[in-house]
């Protein structure tokens, strides 16, 4: 028979720690300004790193905080009006046909016709919620404090890679579905893989993938600790 290293006491301690920290941090962030500060930071980073990720498409994530924004595409300055979205969403993803914008010669005073695609996104579900869940899972593990922090950083890094892949698949699907944007060329299997990845975009999958990823990271972390302590 297989003997797993579990006891009721350690499991109950872990579950209690997890539940208490989860219900402290989730409402404490979701219903306060912290959420909007975090979303604005995430959008800032993504705008900086991914604005020219796709050859002919300019990407801009506009936080739904009712503030106007200004973006620069080539020699043009474009104004984005403040947005207010449904409570489920916190960000408007703007995908602009950069090639088309740069090919135009604007006469001063004239409005620049922009080919674009706008999508409502929830960066809370995509980035923040999984990160908070990983934090709560990591700090609830009954190990040394410094090890909990290391476990959190390691699992957060792993999770962010998965989240980034999920985000990129959303972008590719939106670009390829839009009539206004230059499609991303993909091979047949890449197309299939991306269409299957949409099965894992639901909220249930976000929770499940976060948990499975964290368990995988925990196993690697404990294994590495074991190997290091043997040396």
């Amino acid at each position, binding site marked *: *028979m*297989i*003997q*797993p*290293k*579990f*006891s*009721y006491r350690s*499991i109950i301690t872990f*579950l209690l720690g*997890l*539940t208490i920290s*989860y219900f402290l941090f*989730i*409402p404490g962030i*979701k219903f306060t300004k912290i959420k909007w500060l975090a979303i604005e930071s995430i959008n800032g980073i993504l705008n900086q790193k991914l604005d020219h990720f796709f050859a002919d498409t300019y990407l801009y994530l506009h936080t739904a905080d009712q503030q106007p924004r200004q973006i620069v595409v080539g020699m043009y300055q474009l104004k984005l009006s403040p947005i207010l979205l449904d*409570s*489920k969403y916190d960000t408007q993803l703007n995908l602009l046909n950069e090639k088309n914008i740069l090919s135009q010669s604007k006469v001063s005073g004239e409005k620049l016709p922009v080919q674009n695609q706008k999508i409502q996104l929830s960066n809370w*579900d995509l980035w923040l*919620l999984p990160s908070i*869940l990983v934090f709560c899972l990591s700090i609830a593990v009954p190990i040394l404090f410094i090890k909990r922090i290391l476990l959190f950083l390691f699992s957060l890094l792993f999770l962010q890679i998965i989240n980034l892949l999920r985000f990129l698949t959303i972008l590719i699907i939106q670009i390829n579905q839009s009539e206004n944007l230059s499609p991303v060329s993909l091979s047949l299997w890449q197309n299939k893989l991306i269409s*299957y990845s949409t*099965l*894992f975009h*639901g*909220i*249930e*999958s976000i*929770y*499940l993938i976060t*948990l*499975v990823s964290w368990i995988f990271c925990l*196993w690697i972390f404990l*294994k590495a600790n*074991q190997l290091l302590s043997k040396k």
Partner: protein
Amino acid sequence: MPHQLTGFTPTLMQKYLRNELIKYALVMVLVLMMFFIFSSTGIYEQLIQQPISSLFARSSALLLNLFGYDSWAEDMNIHCGDAVVSISKGCDAIAPIFLSALAIALFPKVRMRNKIKGILFVVLVLAILNLVRILSLVFSQLYYPEIFDFLHIEFWQFIFLVSSGALFIHWLIRNTNYDSTKVQL
């Protein structure tokens, strides 16, 4: 360590693939992925998701009537006063029930009878929990609509995840010999 007969030394990867718990985890992930792919098909929706959601809708309406609320079920929707709650895909508890049942069914070296008992127990507890979830969402829509989204997503998704994990671990401790000195993975 070289193999007794062949003298062949297994690589780290081969060593891990021989480990039953690693094999178990890999099969679990594969079956789960197949389940998600199957859940996107029309056959799944027609034969599994819609009948289960309708059953939950009818049971919830019945319970609400027992509590004195005038309610009725229509396909996958529950009507109660001004509130209408739809049990759509993801709110039917099929995924957490399947996950827990799969974790028990695939676990190596446990008697089949204990596995069947475990699966029945998990299905029953999670189905009851799902009824509580649906009722709480109906009441929230009736009395506290402002917390509906939080209850629907952050609260109940977490409760289901933790409950599924806790039920599986409870079954695991009861059906395997716990020995803290032995580490398998």
